[in-house]
């Protein structure tokens, strides 16, 4: 039985247990690496982003006419001898299927893989009514024998080792099975499951696509069990989510082009089966297959009308959002999901399985955007995850105290900054001066947080230093404003100072508009959307984008939030649209500005060829889509850039995430630092102060020899004296 933690305390326990599972981590880790390579290969030479756009658009269109598509499908399929049902709820779907079984005097049932049947807990329902149900997909059979739910939508048993499977099979068959020999195990399944196929009265399948135009089901499989399930028994029941309806074959073929490629890196699965109506069947008295197609609503129609969440129904269940999720990679699907797992699972659980099952898991997202970038139908998964969290807070009517405090403080910039200054003054005795870190963690943190040192607040924030040091440039080439963000301003002003040093020789007049505040992303992360919107307006007013040629950011997270998040937050304020567009057009990350605008040259820098590794911040490479410029800048600035494994995988910071889930954050960070150390670099460079904080804290804690620096600092260090 699937048991999902309903509160944070239970969830933390579950996470700790999952993190102890070394096999799981290794298996998922290997998978993540090989998946990346095989996916890239599978899409070689294809215009993936165009295809994604087309599918997403097609799906969105279909979602507006789902009921129509259903009726068209029903007409087509019934004309070909099928019976089509629509079940409002999971319970109703299960009952319809049980009734079909009873009416046809069925005793044994074979099933091929169906996430929709997992969603309705169909097996439990049928077994409780005396039917014998055998899962025939190898992975599903394994987890059925173990009484577990799937831990991945495409590879349900990915959490198990060959040894575990071998032991299970020898128990089931009462014959010893070689615990190393996977081929043999597969043959055991082939042999054991054959009789089930041959004797079954009913086959239950899912479907990947339901084509309204012709009433045709499209079923994708690799093993061939879906073909046997739909052919041998006299009755076939297909359980299909309403979201699987597509208007025509063209739409189905588009999905077919991306689904296997994105799921497993296969150009196509071994089998694709297209079933239209009731075909010939020698086992049935009439000579025709008894075919029932049960469509499941279970809130889909409501979801399809939801202005925010409808895009979740574009999902084609490729499982990719798990494959690339750093959290999934550490804890696996049984910990990151309910029935549906991974990013999409965090969202769908709320709608299909209720807020109790969603409450704790929905928080377990770093907002690293990896899932979003790999989703073949462009679902903004991290955004929707936060929106689910927001719904749950609203449903429960009581907010965590920290949300209330955060909102109150953040809406009032002066108060916020006064608090930070006070904290800076009070932290004195806690600070190890020379290292700029806190000697002890403040008492509110438990032991789990001790995986990194925390930086001290700067003695003097950048905003207070700036008026004294602001250079005045005669006839500037460019006027730029720096948007600092909280970390640069109050923790790491040296990063902004480095920027100022770099800009001066290029005759760039830099300004630091004092009215700027936090970018608001932390509020978004805590689902405090109103606060985030207020802060966005404050910043927009403070930055006065029309005064500048560029607005620079040293923090990728602030940058991508302003570029993308602000559009959503301010969508209801048309009077700000022009200002916002101006801000977004002028916004640029540090490296892009150096490379593309200032066009810095190697002769400007000391070519000392210091060996540096690079961490690519989530919000830079995926959020702002900047990948080449930082690497180019490092080379231009006379540094020896040493590529590192998984540069673009999250460092595990995620802002407040690392406070909520310190164990996972530590694990992700640890792996990142291992990769960095393996490059032999002296310095690890990145372009987000949040990442610097996390990476440096972790490096300090492990007493590693690699320095961690913001890219602006390391580049400024190599600048030749004028």
């Amino acid at each position, binding site marked *: 039985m699937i048991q999902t933690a309903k509160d944070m305390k239970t969830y933390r326990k579950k996470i700790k247990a999952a993190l102890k599972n070394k096999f799981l981590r290794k298996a998922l880790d290997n998978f993540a690496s090989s998946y990346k390579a095989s996916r890239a290969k599978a899409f070689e030479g294809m215009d993936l982003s165009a295809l994604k756009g087309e599918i997403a658009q097609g799906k969105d269109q279909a979602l507006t006419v789902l009921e129509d598509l259903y009726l068209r499908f029903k007409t087509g399929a019934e004309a070909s001898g099928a019976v089509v049902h629509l079940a409002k709820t999971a319970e109703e779907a299960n009952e319809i299927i049980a009734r079909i079984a009873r009416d046809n005097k069925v005793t044994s049932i074979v099933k091929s893989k169906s996430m929709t049947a997992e969603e309705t807990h169909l097996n439990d329902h049928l077994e409780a009514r005396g039917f014998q149900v055998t899962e025939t997909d190898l992975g599903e059979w394994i987890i059925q024998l173990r009484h577990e739910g799937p831990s991945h939508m495409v590879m349900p048993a990915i959490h*198990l080792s060959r040894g575990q499977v071998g032991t299970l099979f020898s128990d089931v068959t009462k014959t010893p099975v070689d615990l190393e020999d996977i081929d043999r195990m597969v043959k055991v399944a082939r042999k054991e499951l054959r009789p089930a196929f041959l004797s079954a009265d009913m086959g239950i399948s899912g479907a990947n696509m339901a084509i309204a135009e012709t009433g045709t089901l499209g079923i994708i499989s690799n*093993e061939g069990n879906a073909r046997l399930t739909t052919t041998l028994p006299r009755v076939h029941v297909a359980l299909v989510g309403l979201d699987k309806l597509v208007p025509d074959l063209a739409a189905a073929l588009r999905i077919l082009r991306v689904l296997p490629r994105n799921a497993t890196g296969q150009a196509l699965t071994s089998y694709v089966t297209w079933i239209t109506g009731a075909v010939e069947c020698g086992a049935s008295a009439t000579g025709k297959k008894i075919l029932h197609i049960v469509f499941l609503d279970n809130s889909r129609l409501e979801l399809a009308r939801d202005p925010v969440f409808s895009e979740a129904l574009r999902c084609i269940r490729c499982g990719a959002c798990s494959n690339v999720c750093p959290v999934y990679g550490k804890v696996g699907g049984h910990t990151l999901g309910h029935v549906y797992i991974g990013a999409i699972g965090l969202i769908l659980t709320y709608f299909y399985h209720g807020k109790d099952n969603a409450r704790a898991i929905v928080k377990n997202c770093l907002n690293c955007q990896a899932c979003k970038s790999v989703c073949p139908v462009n679902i903004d998964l991290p955004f929707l995850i936060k929106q689910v969290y927001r719904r749950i807070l609203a449903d429960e009517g009581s907010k965590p105290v920290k949300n209330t405090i955060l909102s109150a403080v953040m809406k009032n910039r002066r108060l916020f900054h006064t608090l930070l200054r006070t904290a800076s003054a009070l932290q004195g005795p806690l600070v190890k001066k020379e290292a700029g870190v806190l000697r002890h963690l403040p008492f509110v943190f438990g032991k789990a947080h001790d995986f990194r040192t925390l930086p001290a607040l700067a003695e003097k924030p950048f905003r207070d230093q700036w008026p004294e040091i602001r250079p005045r440039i005669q006839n500037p080439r460019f006027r730029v404003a720096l948007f600092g963000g909280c970390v640069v301003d109050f923790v790491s002003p040296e990063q902004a100072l480095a920027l100022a040093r770099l800009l001066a020789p290029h005759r760039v007049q830099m300004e630091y508009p004092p009215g700027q505040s936090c970018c608001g992303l932390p509020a978004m992360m805590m689902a405090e959307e109103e606060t985030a919107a207020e802060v966005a307006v404050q910043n927009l007013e403070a930055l006065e984008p029309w005064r500048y040629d560029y607005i620079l950011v040293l923090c990728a997270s602030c940058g991508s939030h302003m570029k993308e998040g602000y559009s959503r937050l301010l969508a209801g304020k048309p009077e700000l649209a022009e200002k916002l567009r101006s801000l977004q057009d002028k916004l640029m990350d540090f490296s892009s500005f150096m490379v593309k605008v200032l066009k810095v040259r190697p002769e400007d820098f000391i070519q000392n060829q210091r060996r540096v590794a690079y961490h690519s911040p989530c919000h830079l490479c995926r959020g702002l889509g900047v990948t080449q410029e930082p690497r180019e800048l490092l080379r231009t600035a006379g540094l020896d850039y040493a590529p590192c494994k998984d540069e673009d995988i999250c460092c595990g910071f995620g802002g407040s995430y690392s406070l909520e889930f310190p164990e996972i954050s530590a694990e992700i960070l640890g792996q990142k630092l291992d990769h960095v150390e393996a490059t032999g670099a002296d310095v690890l460079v990145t372009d987000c102060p949040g990442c610097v904080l996390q990476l440096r804290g972790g490096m300090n804690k492990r007493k590693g020899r690699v320095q961690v620096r913001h890219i602006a600092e390391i580049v400024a260090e190599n600048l030749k004296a004028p």
Partner: protein
Amino acid sequence: MEQTELMDRMKEKAGLVQALVSTVTGMEEVLGRTVGITLGQGGKTIVAPGLDPENLQRLEDLCRAAGLTVLYPPFRPHLSAIHTALTPADWAIAETGTLVLDSDSEDLRIATMLSETHVAWIPVSRIVPDTAALSARLIEKMKSGPGYLAFITGPSRTADIERVLAIGVHGPQELHILMMEEP
């Protein structure tokens, strides 16, 4: 695309997914190969739905000489007894190395699903570059009443245990594709 190019692509792409592809000239060779493959695997039986009576007789003669048995429809009584299934394919899609089989006939389905080895011949003129090239025909087929259409790309496979690829979990363990040029 030129026919030879299509054949090369088909061979390459189907080969990547463990299908065994070769070129043959005429039905004579198709039948001979099928018997040879079956003998080589120690199989005892062959089914051949979709063969015309004349070629079926030739297969029967070859099998008799080789000590093999041809099983005749309906195949339901032989569900566990089929070693080799010899079937035509209606189309082949070079882009993915896929065979397309109109599988309305239950005997054809049983043959291609429950055999240990599936041998399919495809006239080279019926290899198309991609699925789009077939879509009008597929729609026509789907609109023409009850139907079961199969895309087959390599033999049955799974990677459900530790993601290790294993061939032949539920369907045929070998898929031979004979691209047939007319003599």
